[in-house]
């Protein structure tokens, strides 16, 4: 589970001020603090590491260009993630939502190599592939919750919708995903515990 999003090890307001002034130190700090997190989110959103790298650059450029419009109504990090999600949605639209299974396999490997058997990785890739088949609203909600581990309130800020809507989208998304997986008989081999 991705834990880093909840920890703010920097002075957010100073970082924002320095970004507005265009200080080079601020650029280094924001990339250091959020570079990996944004990249990881985008990789999971679009399942293509190469394109995710380019998109991550776009995200930080957008952050810099729009920093004057950040009013502090949400957390700074959720604002950055909202830009990342929007970039990913733009990417979905341009790419006509085509997701390569090879790419999905590539990004869906387990963290712990000793525990991640080939069978579990394959199951994960199948689930991932089905997640990408969900419609946009359900897809992004399920990825942000089940893959990225954001809380309901964080997802609410990132997507700019109410928490009730977030809960509903996650529930509906999971139900649709499960229906698809059911039809594929994903757990036929008795692999319900993920081992």
């Amino acid at each position, binding site marked *: *589970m*991705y834990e880093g999003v909840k920890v703010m090890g920097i002075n957010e307001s100073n970082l924002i001020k320095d970004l507005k002034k*265009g200080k*080079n130190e601020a*650029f*280094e700090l924001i*990339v*250091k603090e959020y*570079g*990996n997190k944004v*990249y*990881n989110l985008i*990789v*999971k959103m679009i399942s293509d*590491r190469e394109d*995710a*790298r380019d998109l*991550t*650059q*776009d995200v*930080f*450029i957008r952050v*810099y*260009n729009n920093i004057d419009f950040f009013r502090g109504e949400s957390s700074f990090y959720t604002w950055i993630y909202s830009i990342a999600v929007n970039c990913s949605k733009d990417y979905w639209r341009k790419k006509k939502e085509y997701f390569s299974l090879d790419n999905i396999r590539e*990004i*869906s*490997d*387990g*963290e*712990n190599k000793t*525990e*991640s058997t080939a069978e*579990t990785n394959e*199951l*994960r890739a199948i*689930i991932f592939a089905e997640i990408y088949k969900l419609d946009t609203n359900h897809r992004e909600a399920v990825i942000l*919750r*089940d*893959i990225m581990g954001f809380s*309901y309130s964080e997802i609410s800020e990132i997507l700019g919708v109410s928490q009730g809507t977030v*809960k*509903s989208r*996650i*529930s509906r998304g*999971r*139900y649709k*995903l*499960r229906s698809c*997986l*059911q039809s594929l008989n994903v*757990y036929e081999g008795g*692999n*319900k*515990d*993920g081992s």
Partner: protein
Amino acid sequence: MDHERYIDLISRDIDKDLSEDEKKELDYHLQSCEECSSYYQDLMADKAILDGMVVHELKDKDKKQIEYNMKNIKNRMHKMKKYLPYAAGLIIVLAIAGTTLSNLFMMGRSDDSASDSGSGYPGFESPEQWEGEASQEDIARNSDGGNQSDVENVEISREFDVSKIVYRGNISLYTEDYKETADRISTLVLSQGGFIQEASANYYDVAAERSEKAGYMIVRVPSEGFSETMKEIESYGDAVRSGIASTNITQQYQDIEGELDSYFIQEERLLDYLSQAESINDMLSIESELTRVRREINHRSTMLKNWDKEVAYSTININIYERTLPTSKVQTPFEDFGRRIREAFIQSVNYLLKLIVDASIMIVRLMPFAVVAVGTVYIVRILLTKYKK
């Protein structure tokens, strides 16, 4: 059974979002509903599989690249900002140039219209009066004939009988001694061969225990000395208003003269018929017609005489106000405080209204520039966005 509700509860339970009561309700339902129980277990299995995915990280060179890109954009924007004042200045210059040209154009139009309508000419109450009456200045200019640039006016003046013009003048005077001024005017008018048609004076209170004299005079002076008399009277005090008006009665005069000639001819013929009449009845009918013709002749002759008198003697209306000087009495500055406040307020309101109208016109005038400016900014922003990418 409301499975949809339990599907939502299952989803929220996985995320540990249920209250105790909801959790109890869900557990109770799961014990009795195999379908929901299976769904719950499947979701938990999905979550377990999805947990623990590898966290993808950027390579250091990618991070450096991002930092480089951001710095690069900053530098480009800094360069762009240097040109912003020039761009803004250019837009302002264009706007001012456009406004000035527009103003010049409007001024040209207003000058034309002013000269057409004659508005603002002293002594004329309304443009209609001005249109109906030729001014003395025009007459003087027309009679001059020496100025080659006014050839057209001179040509008109040749067709224009200046001998049948009635002049009227209006003067408002402030003077320190009403009686002395009135006497001087009387002397002047009489010395010019004119006469005083009407005169009146009265006292009125201007403040507590203080009264002032004011009055008016209507004098008639020979037309030849009209202008000189006006100037002389104006010099007798502080003239606050002075105006001249004239009426050209040449056309009416000539019409009446023609009619009179015609009636004289009729009269001669009737007298001729009368001398040749043989019966009493003929004589009576001719006498009756002769009486009517002579009445018409008298009527028109009187009109012509009156007009001759009007033409020969110009009328000057003089309003005289006696103004006391501050000598022995302390004069309060508040005597016309209310009037001055009212006037100041009205002036301010008028100025404000004019300002609003002018501002509205200016906004409308600048609209085309604003459209161009907004369009330019929009295009520049699009280009900048592409440039940054």
